């Protein structure tokens, strides 16, 4: 069996083995270094925090951001109606490919909620996806969109949230599949997908269109449902608002670019009326997870709904993303 060439190879392969092992060890050290570097949390800069703290905050303006941002859709108890939607006790379960997220209590309760948080902690959650202990928050909290919010709007929203009732409800932990249970990994996701670049470039945008872009891409976080995702859970930038499979099971979230099968026939005022009333031009009524979004949209100023409609008319058209 043993041939001269076979004999000759053995020591060589042993040597190679040592190199491979050495190389692996080195790669592991470099890899760990890169991993640590890439996954490190990056809080909001001191200059920006100072600007946010210096803003002249107004709780009344903050209320409209609260509705635009849809905080109650996730943070109010399931089935809450009317005033109860202002009790942000959490508990709603969000199912995803990575496991189930149990939405936290963000009411003013000092123990169960975020009553003890200062503006800095709040800004870090909204604009950097970082919790008060410095660890990453999961992007199921749509800070990938909220990161586009202005200093003034973050300050106003914080001021409004201080006026909301406290709830001492303590919620169950998330039920995530390994390895998604490791918060540090979210750093890799952020490295790949978190930035505050505009989602689309709109030439010669007037004030109305810019306002629409801000509301949809920022606080309104419309793309979080209406844009398809890749395997790592990042939004597919080239298919912005092209529609996506329903993350919660059967069915779809529709394409709302001008190429969408329904919306292509709607005028801007049809879109604004849908956001106000929930009715399509042929008086079908809104359904699924959009019901709650529409209730939030109904709380906005008419001009904001019109701005959103103008933006949806102006974005690039795409075929269905599902």
């Amino acid at each position, binding site marked *: 069996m043993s041939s001269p060439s076979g004999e000759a190879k053995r020591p060589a392969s042993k040597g190679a083995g040592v190199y491979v092992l050495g190389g692996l060890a080195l790669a592991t050290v470099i890899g760990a270094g890169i991993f640590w570097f890439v996954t490190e949390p990056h809080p909001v800069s001191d200059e920006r925090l100072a600007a946010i703290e210096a803003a002249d905050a107004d709780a009344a303006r903050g209320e409209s951001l609260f509705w635009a941002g849809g905080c109650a859709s996730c943070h109010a108890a399931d089935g809450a109606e009317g005033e109860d939607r202002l009790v942000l006790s959490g508990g709603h379960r969000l199912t995803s490919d990575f496991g189930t997220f149990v939405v936290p209590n963000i009411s003013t309760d000092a123990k169960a909620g975020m009553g003890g948080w200062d503006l800095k902690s709040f800004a870090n959650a909204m604009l950097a996806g970082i919790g008060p202990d410095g660890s990453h928050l999961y992007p199921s909290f749509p800070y990938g969109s909220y990161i586009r919010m202005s200093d003034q709007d973050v300050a106003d929203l914080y001021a409004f949230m201080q006026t909301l009732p406290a709830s001492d409800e303590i919620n169950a932990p998330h039920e995530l599949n390994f390895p998604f249970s490791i918060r540090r990994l979210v750093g890799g996701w952020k490295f790949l997908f978190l930035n505050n670049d505009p989602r689309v470039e709109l030439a010669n945008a007037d004030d109305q269109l810019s306002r629409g872009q801000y509301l949809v891409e920022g606080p309104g976080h419309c793309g979080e449902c209406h844009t398809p995702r890749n395997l790592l859970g990042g939004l597919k930038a080239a298919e912005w608002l092209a529609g996506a499979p329903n993350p919660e099971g059967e*069915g779809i979230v529709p394409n709302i670019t001008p190429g969408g099968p329904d919306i292509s026939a709607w005028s801007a005022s049809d879109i604004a009326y849908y956001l106000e009333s929930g009715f399509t031009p042929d008086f079908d009524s809104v*359904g699924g997870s959009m019901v709650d979004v529409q209730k939030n949209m109904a709380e906005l100023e008419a001009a904001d709904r019109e701005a959103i409609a103008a933006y949806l008319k102006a974005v690039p058209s795409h075929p269905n993303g599902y």
Partner: protein
Amino acid sequence: MTVRTLITAATFGLAAVVAAYAAEPQEVRQEMMKQVGGATGAMAKMVKGQEDFDQAKVIEALTTISSSMAEFPAQFPEGSETGMDTEAAPAIWEKKDDFEAKAMSLKEEADAGIANPPADLDGLKAMFGPLTKSCGSCHETYRLKKEG
């Protein structure tokens, strides 16, 4: 009226009945919802100020909604979960009682409007908002947008 026209009428009447029975439940229920949508649209046009308030038309619309909702929950037999572009959500078969209760509550609201019809536009507006909340609260759980 001649015997021939009588026979023709009877034949057509029978044909209509047969057609109604032959239609699949998926089609029947979608047609019912289209009627409900049309009736809602007729009232919405008045609320939006695109048409003048007309009490007779409001009663007609409420009657369409009431009679459709009375029959609607019966159009979801086992085996009609998919097909013919249905947007019915699986939850209908999982929570049948709640689904029927939602249909009945819309029917009752429409019946209340028929019994005590709005006298003017303000009355219609006061009724229209709460009534149409029922649409979204059922569609939220029981209707799913599907591909196509």
